[in-house]
């Protein structure tokens, strides 16, 4: 199929410069409001020039950008002076997102982002298309990625799970990184009471700590507001966001690892978060924050029953609780004194599991057919106790946590596990991949 060359929405320059313009306008208004702050005329001139330049450059970039779906590639051409032509093979597509920042939402636009295994999300985006068109393009790309006839209608989907917004707020409030700031704020209050003559300092201190706390809570709440997870023929769909909405799709068979996370206080409440890793080859740069979006929360906060339900859809047959014999031997205390109570590694014929964590519990689950390599590692201290660390790596950067870590296992058992994991991975790789999910509405 050879599609026609298409342009992005003519309103996209407005969205592109929209953010910068708002800032300029706010600064400008502030400046105008100030009486006697330099010549208003000169300032207005500068301001208008900036506006025109912004609009013109945005318009030119819109003019020279075009895209089409051609054969088995998505092609994007852009650039006025340095022409850039980008071809993304559709079978390499790992995920397709539709993202709408606030300005774009007001104008009824959305951006299509394509995540492919080669990395480089930055350039493989169509910003912006009409919201409805964006959804059609997403459906087309996904259908083609699965080797199906492209249809413009997004396939039917069944909701799996929705996050209660109240629980989301409470959960984010209680999450570990936010809490220390609350303690600091409380310390500020105590200081103000104890030393009334320095109360002003204490109030500043309090305000800073509280704003950091609110920032840490608000960001995830804003990102995961009205979170809903559903399953359709082409994969999982995630719809979320308060100011900026996101509609993400994770195709089946592209899930490399699932991580179940439980911060300290959530453990008392029996709440969990579930993240997934989708493949990417190399992290481009630290600054490329878009690339890190590929590790996603499948569930931002949920109770055990909901987590089990989502797991049965994502990894059918995976059980979260360690089986007997999965714990490291008691002498592992001397090597990992804080983790030994929580550490565990086990496997069945489909998945590898490992749990680690000092206060927060992290369980990583990797399907055998996604294992890239198996490693054993033992330092002098581990060897002194006849122990060995055992790892199985899923695709992704080292820091993403797609590695199953069996810490401080008995040496002999670690070796047995390593060979067993290699063997199981070899068998499972031969199994047919689950490309299309079977929808079973409940």
């Amino acid at each position, binding site marked *: 199929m050879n599609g026609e060359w298409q342009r992005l929405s003519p309103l996209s320059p407005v969205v592109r410069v929209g953010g910068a313009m708002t800032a300029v306008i706010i600064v400008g208004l502030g400046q105008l409001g100030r009486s006697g702050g330099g010549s208003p005329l000169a300032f207005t001139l500068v301001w208008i020039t900036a506006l025109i330049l912004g609009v013109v450059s945005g318009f030119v970039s819109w003019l020279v950008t075009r895209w089409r779906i051609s054969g088995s590639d998505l092609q994007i051409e852009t650039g006025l002076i340095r022409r850039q032509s980008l071809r993304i093979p559709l079978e390499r597509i790992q995920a397709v997102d539709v993202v709408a920042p606030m300005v774009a939402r007001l104008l009824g636009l959305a951006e299509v982002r394509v995540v492919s295994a080669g990395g480089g999300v930055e350039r493989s985006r169509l910003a912006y298309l009409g919201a409805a068109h964006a959804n059609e393009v997403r459906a087309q790309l996904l259908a083609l990625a699965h080797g199906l006839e492209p249809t413009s209608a997004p396939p039917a989907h069944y909701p799996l799970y929705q996050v209660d917004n109240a629980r989301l707020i409470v959960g984010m409030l209680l999450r570990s990184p936010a809490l220390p700031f609350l303690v600091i704020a409380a310390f500020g209050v105590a200081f103000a009471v104890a030393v009334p003559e320095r109360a002003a300092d204490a109030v500043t201190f309090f305000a800073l700590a509280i704003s950091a706390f609110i920032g840490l809570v608000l960001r995830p709440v804003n990102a995961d507001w009205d979170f809903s997870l559903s399953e359709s023929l082409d994969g999982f769909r995630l719809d979320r966001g308060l100011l900026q909405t996101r509609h993400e799709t994770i195709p089946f068979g592209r899930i490399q690892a699932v991580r179940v996370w439980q911060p300290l206080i959530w453990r008392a409440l029996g709440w969990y978060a579930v993240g997934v890793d989708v493949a990417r080859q190399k992290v481009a740069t630290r600054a490329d924050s878009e690339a890190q979006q590929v590790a996603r929360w499948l569930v931002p906060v949920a109770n055990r029953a909901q987590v089990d339900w989502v797991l049965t859809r994502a990894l059918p047959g995976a059980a979260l609780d360690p089986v007997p014999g999965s714990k490291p031997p008691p002498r592992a205390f001397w090597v990992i004194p804080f983790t030994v109570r929580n550490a565990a590694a086990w496997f069945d014929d489909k998945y590898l599991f490992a749990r680690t964590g000092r206060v927060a519990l992290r369980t990583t689950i990797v399907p055998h057919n996604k294992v890239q*390599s198996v490693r054993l590692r033992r330092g002098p201290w581990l060897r002194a106790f006849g122990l060995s660390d055992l790892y199985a790596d*899923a695709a992704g950067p080292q820091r993403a946590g797609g590695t199953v870590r069996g810490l401080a296992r008995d040496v002999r058992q670690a070796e047995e596990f390593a060979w067993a994991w290699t063997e199981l991975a070899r068998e499972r790789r031969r199994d047919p991949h689950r490309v299309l999910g079977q929808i079973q509405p409940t």
Partner: protein
Amino acid sequence: VEFNRVSPKWWLARQCELAAGYGIPLVICLVLSMSYTVLLLAAALLLLLFVIAWFVERGRYRRWGYAERAEDLVVRRGYLFQHMSIVPYGRMQFIDVKAGPVERAFGLATVQLHTAAAASDALIPGLPRAEAERLRDRLTTAGEARATGI
């Protein structure tokens, strides 16, 4: 598992590097030293470090090995920190053959395997050039035959 060892020439190269790494500071000590005691202490310390490093390196040389099995490559390395990596042929994304100046002088090369997981760390140094190329070709063909999607 039967492991292939790395070339004895690699051990020779490492010894040269070690000798240079400790010999040059020793010479600098000799030139700059103010008194016999300082000189003797520094020399003794350097010698001690050299002996320790020499034994550790020898241990590393003796343990470093690789085995080409039917479906995967097994690499064993490290003396104090012992590692073993098992990488299935079908998972290899690309293979690097590198040779630094010292390695080149001894006609050696290093083969490194990359998978889609950044944590995979299979690295085989000190292969004779021809052997390194044979291994690379063999791994590439094996990988192509068994390639699976990510």
